[in-house]
């Protein structure tokens, strides 16, 4: 699990926070590829469809904190739809992914956004990712259209490419920065006790 | 009114030999049997016209059409075109065999009920059923009516149906199957190691032999016996059964069909079946190939000689030269594919003579094998003794403690069915017992 350093000041106080992040979107838009790129720096042309949901972790370093993402990469197939709440319940962040060469996937993404707005935590940080940006010649969803939609719904928005790695780290970083990393409450230990049950604390996640 | 000259005359079942335990009538296990000509039923609404023959008649026409339609639809599997292209179908209740004949123009189908087979202790083994119920009647039908099959025309359809009706309605009730299906499947012919009803000599092709032989012994001759039993009849007189022209077509060396006239001559218990070939050149239609003069000559020639031969054969039985194996405490089947010679302890006349009397020679003292074991013989033979290999050996034991032994040496096949015995507990025991049996009973036959 390599931590991604982005200019942490050496020697500075470093708090570690962990956040649950879920990826949603239609089957074959590239959710697993995005995660694979983010976590392992790899890309496979013929990525198999996800079985159930895959759970991975990845840590990023911000200026004043280390953020550990607990990522749920969900399968996009129809039969799993009703399981989605299981994954986004209690999630602090969500990336809704669509494929810029597939109009239907964009519609589906909008549905996911609606669902999250209705059912997920009200403070959830949401991002919209228009994946497969490397296939611009087959584009059917215009950047502006998606951008406008994202603004209307207060979503982070980037077009990404797991293949070229364009904007992959960036979108996670953007989410990390938006996540509430407040001053510690109570204890000042800089580590997370893994054996403690997860607790949702308002605003801050750090212990 | 059928005259003596018409072969169908002999299919009247006036004399039926009692069925021995080893065989049963196919009618006892049959659901239905049919012959269809698909081309006759292509037009929508006219599908029922494909049916050339259907047994039993009581089945509604709708159902008949459905059943035959199903058989026709099975052809969706494209296979290499071979004369007896076939399909077998197994459902929960029945086993079916469908074969295409005459260059795919006709389909023969038969369905056997699993329940009836169970009650009759008949182990349904489809390859054997296929042979008995499809191959044989077709060949037989073709032997006598090939002109009809081969030159089938629209306007002959009614006549064709009539002939089918006559043929099958008499043939089917007489058709028997062996409880040991392997006997039917191998399709051999019992040679003169036992008597009566056995073959002494033949010179026709092997393709035709089993069918003709079967026809003679199961159909033609039994009906002929009845008059012989009448005490007033002169014992030594020979008789002819002869038929009209355009009858038999036999295979020659190149497996082409040639036309012959068949003459059957019988004296005492000996029967000679002669085939007179039609000349290649067309003769004047007025002249019959087999003339009365010819018959008189044959009669004069054969009468004395044949009756002498018959007497001598009769004398041989029970004499020292009697090569028949004694009653055994095991069952066996021996088959030589080269000569088609087949002999078994389930011999068709081992418990009945053609005249209805019971002969006890050649009968095994062993109890009849259980149905499971009968079927096991077929399964092991077809599964593990390769047809192409000249050698093979197989031992199988059932939980009933019966053993099945199959030995193939120089392509000749010996099957033993050994009833439970305290002398054969282990495989080694059985191996040695087999060797003893082969030495004592089958040496001469097996290894020559």
């Amino acid at each position: 699990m390599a931590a991604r350093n982005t200019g942490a000041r050496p020697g500075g106080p470093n708090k570690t926070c962990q956040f649950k992040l879920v990826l949603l979107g239609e089957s074959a838009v590239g959710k697993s590829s995005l995660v694979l790129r983010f976590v392992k720096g790899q890309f496979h042309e013929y990525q198999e469809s996800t079985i159930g949901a895959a759970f991975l972790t990845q840590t990023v370093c911000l200026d004043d904190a280390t953020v550990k993402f607990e990522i749920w990469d969900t399968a996009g197939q129809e039969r799993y739809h009703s399981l989605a709440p299981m994954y986004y319940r209690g999630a602090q962040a969500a990336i809704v992914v669509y494929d810029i060469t597939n109009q239907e996937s964009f519609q589906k993404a909008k549905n996911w956004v609606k669902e999250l707005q209705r059912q997920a935590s009200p403070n959830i940080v949401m991002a919209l990712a228009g994946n497969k940006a490397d296939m611009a010649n087959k584009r059917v969803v215009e950047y502006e259209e998606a951008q406008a939609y994202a603004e209307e719904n207060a979503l982070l928005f980037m077009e990404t490419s797991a293949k070229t790695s364009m904007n992959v780290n960036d979108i996670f970083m953007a989410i990390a920065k938006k996540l509430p990393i407040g001053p510690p409450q109570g204890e000042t230990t800089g580590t997370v006790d893994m054996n403690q049950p997860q607790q949702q604390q308002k605003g801050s996640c750090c212990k | 009114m059928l005259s003596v000259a018409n072969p169908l005359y002999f299919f009247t079942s006036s004399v039926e030999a009692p069925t021995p335990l080893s065989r049963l009538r196919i009618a006892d296990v049959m659901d239905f049997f049919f012959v269809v000509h698909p081309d006759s039923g292509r037009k929508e609404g006219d599908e029922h016209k494909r049916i050339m023959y259907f047994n039993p008649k009581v089945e509604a026409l709708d159902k008949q059409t459905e059943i035959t339609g199903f058989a026709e639809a099975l052809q969706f599997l494209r296979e290499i075109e071979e004369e007896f292209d076939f399909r077998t179908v197994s459902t929960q209740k029945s086993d079916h065999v469908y074969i295409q004949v005459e260059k795919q123009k006709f389909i023969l189908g038969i369905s056997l009920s699993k329940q009836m087979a169970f009650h009759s202790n008949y182990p349904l083994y489809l390859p054997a059923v296929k042979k008995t119920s499809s191959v044989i009647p077709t060949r037989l039908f073709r032997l006598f009516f090939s002109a009809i099959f081969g030159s089938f025309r629209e306007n002959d359809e009614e006549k064709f149906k009539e002939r089918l009706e006559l043929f099958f309605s008499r043939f089917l009730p007489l058709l028997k199957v062996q409880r040991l299906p392997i006997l039917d499947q191998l399709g051999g012919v019992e040679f003169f190691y036992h008597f009566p009803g056995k073959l002494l000599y033949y010179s026709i092709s092997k393709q035709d032999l089993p069918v003709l032989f079967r026809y003679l012994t199961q159909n033609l001759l039994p009906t002929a016996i009845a008059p012989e039993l009448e005490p007033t009849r002169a014992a030594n007189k020979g008789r002819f059964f002869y038929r009209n022209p355009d009858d038999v077509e036999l295979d020659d060396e190149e497996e082409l069909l040639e036309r012959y006239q068949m003459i059957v001559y019988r004296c005492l218990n000996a029967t000679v079946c002669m085939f007179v070939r039609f000349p290649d050149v067309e003769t004047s239609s007025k002249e019959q190939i087999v003339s009365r003069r010819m018959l008189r000559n044959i009669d004069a020639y054969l009468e004395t000689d044949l009756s002498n031969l018959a007497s001598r054969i009769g004398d041989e039985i029970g004499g020292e030269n009697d090569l028949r194996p004694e009653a055994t405490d095991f069952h066996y089947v021996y088959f030589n594919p080269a000569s088609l010679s087949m002999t078994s302890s389930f011999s068709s006349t081992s418990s009945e003579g053609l005249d209805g009397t019971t002969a006890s020679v050649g009968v095994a003292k062993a109890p009849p094998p259980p149905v499971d074991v009968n079927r096991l013989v077929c399964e092991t033979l077809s599964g593990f003794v390769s047809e192409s290999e000249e050698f093979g050996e197989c031992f199988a034991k059932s939980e009933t403690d019966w053993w099945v032994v199959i030995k193939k040496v120089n392509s000749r096949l010996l099957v033993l069915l050994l009833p439970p015995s305290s002398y054969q507990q282990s495989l080694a025991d059985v191996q040695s017992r087999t060797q003893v049996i082969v030495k004592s009973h089958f040496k001469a036959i097996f290894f020559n």
Partner: protein
Amino acid sequence: MEIEAPGGSESFTEDDIQNLSLQQIDLPEQDAETASIMESDETVLDRLACLPYQAFVLSEYGRPIFVNSGNEEQLCSLFAVIGIFVSRVKLWGDELMTITSKDRQIQFLHRTPLILCIVSKYGEKLDEQLEVLFEQIVSTLSRAQLESVYRKKGDNYDLRRLLRGTDRLIESSVSSWRGTLSSIHSAISVLPMNPGDREFLSATMSGCLGAAKLDGALFGVMVAHRQIASYVRFKNYVMHPRDMNIVINLVSDKSLQVAEAQTWTPICLPHFNDTGFFYAYIAYPWEAKGIPACLVLLSVKRDHFDGLNEVKKRILFKKIGSEREIFFGNFSTAVVKPNLFAISQIGSNSESLWSFVYRNHLSKQVCISASKIPLISREERWDSRSDLRKADALVSKEGHLRTLFVRNTKNSLLIWVTDKFSLQCVFGPFVSAIVAFTVVDKLLKSLKSHEQRYFIIHTPSF
């Protein structure tokens, strides 16, 4: 001769009633677009004729659902014919089972609302293969969902929508059945391990699961190479071997072999309960070290992921110390270089024995011998395997068969069936019965004395 059957006597009884209500997964309400127009293609049929087998799944109403190695869209006329045959026979109050021709056998299975069909050049146990295929589909949807979807969405519903992404699992289920002898026997195959190591592993797994007190967590399995290294269970619950093979098929999917990921997925185990779902926690904890062993933890509660994730961590880090080091070293070797039963260990005269398959009927486990000359190359093994398969099919068909000994110029086969076990051996040609049985006797003794290595004799419960 009374022989104690190697491989355990812990009987797996199907009568064990396992009363557990399982959660259901709701089907989606919204409809996506319908499938595109289908065409049939005659050349595809011709291509099919060349393949050793083809498996078809369609709905009762004739809609294609699955065909392996082929596009079901192009074969819709073939699917229709299959459907017609089955329904025509059904109308007659009967049930179509097989159609055979000269060199092909077609087997049918009707399990409402599906029709399954396989066309194969080899006729062995096709009925069982179709049952396995059906169960594989049920494992994705559950029987309840499978039946209700047509009620809710109509006869014309395209079930492929619900099966998307599972094609490769169905394919591997079918192909592993044809390639793995243990599947054919509806049994499980065990990874050979030192008895002490297996005990350590099982104790660790059951201990951690027990301590977690997750009410609803029922099974823990360690799988490698489609073999079971260890298997623990909650109280008296047992897993049917066919369900186990479904789990093995799932976890053997390459996409799950990722060091950094754990998978959480619903799975229905038809023999346990076909109305609802388990949830499987799947991890390859040592993948990064090149050890392809998979830990599977099964629970009926969908919110147990975190709990089970903790269990895994505890399993990995329990008893740190020399004991664990030794175990781990041995375990790595056992997984990376599996040590199947070597015939030579039987002793003298065993050269004539080329291969064997031993099955214990009570514990439903098989032991298969390691490859040995002259059965090394794929071709060589294929030939002997098909002989064994034929023999096995005969044993299935003729339940009264107890002994079979076949000798020909190629090899000799010995099949021995008792109430407790069955043994299928391939010997060299011209082996006498006496020699064969002597070797078999030695083999059984050897299996018995090493049974802890090659079988799971005791499955601890927590």
